[in-house]
């Protein structure tokens, strides 16, 4: 791994002041460190944000659950408050990687990285999340821009993610048997007016499947999406699953999620 300067920031202000075009924020480091070791990324400065107290913790209000960006997956999966308010979010966190990854990896890091197969981005889309940064609030629908690409500007730091508590919800994934990343993951959330069907792993970026959302908003039953033939032209195809298989998996996982709601 190439050399860099390590900084530990005390607050968001210091973190963004240290940021430059050749720096990265370091939270759990579960992607940043392996990427740097493999030479896929190089930075002059790594700015550790884990010690910023304000960035960790979980708050539940009547309508929403707000999770600090540096909160670890294990804290989300063990939180009684999250389990009570949005059980599907807690079980999503419990299914990320392995225990050692969950002991280090953070929700903010996962979202900022926006891996096409990551779990958390689907929760943000399904649960109409608002991403709070040190500069502004961004709706999840406008946050995830493309493969590993977000609306974040250089030096902009995610501080918290605010999830809307749904009436019912479930996240179902077909994990890669080795990495536990989602080959396809579907997060179904039924809100008062509408239903979101957020899909991860299938395309280059997480998305809300409009066709299934519409069908389920009309009739919230797995029968309303049974046998749906989704367009697979933009779906990923690799050694683990072809595009057509992924399209079929999206419907299967969505049905499982609706039945589990």
């Amino acid at each position, binding site marked *: *791994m*190439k*050399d*860099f*300067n*390590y900084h*530990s920031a005390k607050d968001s202000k210091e973190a963004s002041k240290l940021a430059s075009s050749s720096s990265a924020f*370091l939270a759990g*480091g*579960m992607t940043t*460190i*392996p990427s740097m*070791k*493999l030479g896929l990324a190089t930075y002059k400065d*790594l700015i*550790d944000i*884990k010690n910023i107290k304000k960035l960790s913790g979980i708050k539940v209000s009547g309508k929403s659950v707000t999770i600090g960006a540096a909160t670890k997956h*294990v804290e989300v999966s063990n939180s009684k408050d999250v389990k009570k308010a949005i059980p599907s979010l807690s079980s999503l966190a419990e299914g990320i*990687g*392995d*225990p*050692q*990854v969950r*002991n*280090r990896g953070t929700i903010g890091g996962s979202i900022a990285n926006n891996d096409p197969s990551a779990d958390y981005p689907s929760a943000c889309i399904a649960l109409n999340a608002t991403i709070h940064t040190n500069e502004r609030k961004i709706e999840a629908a406008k946050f995830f821009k493309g493969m590993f690409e977000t609306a974040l500007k250089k030096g902009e730091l995610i501080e918290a993610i605010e999830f809307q508590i749904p009436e019912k919800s479930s996240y179902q994934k077909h994990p890669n048997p*080795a*990495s*536990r990343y989602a080959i396809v993951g579907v997060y179904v959330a039924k809100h008062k007016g509408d239903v979101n069907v957020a899909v991860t792993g299938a395309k280059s970026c997480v998305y809300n499947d409009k066709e299934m959302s519409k069908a389920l908003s009309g009739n919230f039953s797995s029968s309303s999406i049974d046998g749906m033939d989704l367009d697979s032209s933009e779906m990923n195809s690799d050694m683990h699953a072809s595009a057509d298989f992924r399209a079929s998996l999206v419907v299967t996982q969505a049905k499982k999620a609706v039945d589990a709601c």
Partner: protein
Amino acid sequence: MGKISLEVNGRKVEKEAPDNTLLSTFLREHLQLTGTHIGCDTSQCGACVVHVDGNSLKSCTALAADINGSKVTTIEGLETNGKMHPMQEAFKKLHGLQCGFCTPGMVMSAVDLLQKNKKPSDTEIRDWLEGNICRCTGYQNIVAAVKEAATKM
């Protein structure tokens, strides 16, 4: 370059190390604690698992600088007065290892499991060991060893 201060296996250590030093490198090359193994070096195999402030992590995927000030336990820190830890005894008794390369990580991970769940089921043990890969045993004896250790800890 920065000063790394840690408590490793109950002993306070302080050493200068470049900022890009991984915890695994710090343990093996700066402290000569070579019981922590490097397998894949891509955070998948778990041979490098150690405990930091009571929780298991993969030391090949953490910076020494990043855990400055923490308490670290490695496989060398499990024994008491030359007596093996119950988890090590159980791995030995039930043949939970063959070549032994993955064993330090397996043991450290399994000890963390029993700290959090005193009586895990087979499924819970297998789920927990998700991040530890063994290419010899087929896992059966590892699971048996963890269950045995659970009765002794």
